[in-house]
């Protein structure tokens, strides 16, 4: 065969269509922005009764609940297939990444399926998020000691 891996890598990159960046970005911008708008709506609603800090927490909880409901109904995935980062980046994307394996792996049992696989996608975020916050905490503590 008149081909070597290096040449082939060039051929493949020429033949492979790129993602439509402008269209993808517009989808991500408007859907991601829309989710944030819903969040802001929720926050204003909660501000009637609670202070800013508690209203913020309730907003996060509300968005997570909505994402879980949309995921269970199979709608979140359909929206995400177009919106990409617009649905991945907000807190709703994180909720989707926990709820979807919980639904998917129910067939393998509550412990060995749901329990074992529920953090299969979100796990790295939790692990490295915890590690980063511990590191930040240490720096913060040292900063207090020094000065």
């Amino acid at each position, binding site marked *: *065969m008149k081909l070597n891996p290096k040449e082939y890598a060039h051929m493949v990159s020429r033949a492979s269509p790129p993602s439509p960046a402008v269209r993808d970005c517009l989808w991500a911008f408007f859907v991601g922005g829309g989710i944030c708008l819903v969040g802001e709506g929720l926050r204003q609603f909660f501000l009637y009764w609670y202070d800013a800090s508690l209203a913020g927490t309730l907003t996060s909880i509300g968005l997570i609940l909505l994402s879980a409901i949309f995921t269970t109904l199979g709608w979140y*995935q359909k929206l995400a297939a177009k919106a*990409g980062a617009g649905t991945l980046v907000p807190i709703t994307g994180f909720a989707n990444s926990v709820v*979807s394996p919980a639904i998917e792996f129910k067939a393998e049992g509550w412990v060995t399926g749901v329990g074992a696989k529920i953090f299969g996608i979100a796990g790295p975020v939790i692990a490295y998020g915890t590690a980063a916050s511990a590191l930040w905490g240490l720096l913060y503590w040292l900063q207090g000691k020094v000065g």
Partner: protein
Amino acid sequence: MIRRKDTVLFDKPPVIAAWAAAGGKKESEGPLAAGFDFLTEDAAFPEEACANWEQAESFLQQKAVEICLRKAGISRKEVDLALAGDLQAQCTASNYTMRALEIPFAGLYGACSTMAESLCLGASLTAGGVAHQLLAMTSSHFCAAERQFRTPLDYGAKRTPTAQWTATAAGACLLRGAGQKGVPVLSVTFGRVQDYEVHDINNMGAAMMPAAVSTLLRYFGATGTAPSDFDVIFTGDLGEVGSALLQEQMAREGLPLPNHRDCGCLLYDVASQNVQAGGSGPGCSAAVLCTHILPALQKGQYRRVLFMATGALMSQTTFLQGESIPGIAHCVELAGEGTV
């Protein structure tokens, strides 16, 4: 039987006497829908008490076998051997189908090349007299494959334009010895594994293309044939990206393929069915074989074709370990019914 390099030529060609294809909803909306023997709107089969996607795939296989045997006019007890495989880990869709059928069984794994692999082996065994009636079959199920290889079905992710859509389909063929009614298998060529260091799991067509070229060149070299000797040269599941690469490379080799068609681009309407670069999965080429290629050979619309299915032979583990994706392609030469 004569062996010329990697190609086995049958002087008394075994035949594919009967075949059947079963498919899901997306397949029922595709251009080959009319050729399917069984189609369902709900490939979860809740009414048949399937509890999960793995069982659903096995049920789809059973449907294909059932119809294939009915068309052949025989009962399952008359089958000497079944060769079957699928994408599920340890080929369980096939194993559980065979649990229900109780036919002597040998499991195969060739990823998306499984249909051609089973035909290559099946034709050789039938021509050699090892089996008189042999089932060659395979399947794939989008939902079973997604949860095993990618992410949960409800996980929100975007697919790249080079990704391919795993077909929810099963195909079954019944092979018989020479001299009987059916589509003759003139030769088979077992492929060699080719790895051109493609690492992108969302570009399987590119990963498998070198294997397709390798097998085609070996086949043409061994038999002294040229692409123009065939009505159509079918590849299994290179998709649009892999097909374009195949055309480019074959032209460089001095053997352009104007008569090339890819099963991944035939099963679906790539432009409108949101399958990105096309279909894939063992069920894809099996379904195109049983809904389009074999019927056309039976009716005399084609006189001679090559059916070459390609497979990507990585696993989720090797992919995560940073290994490149090896490919394989097995080729079956088929003739029009009654032409040999």
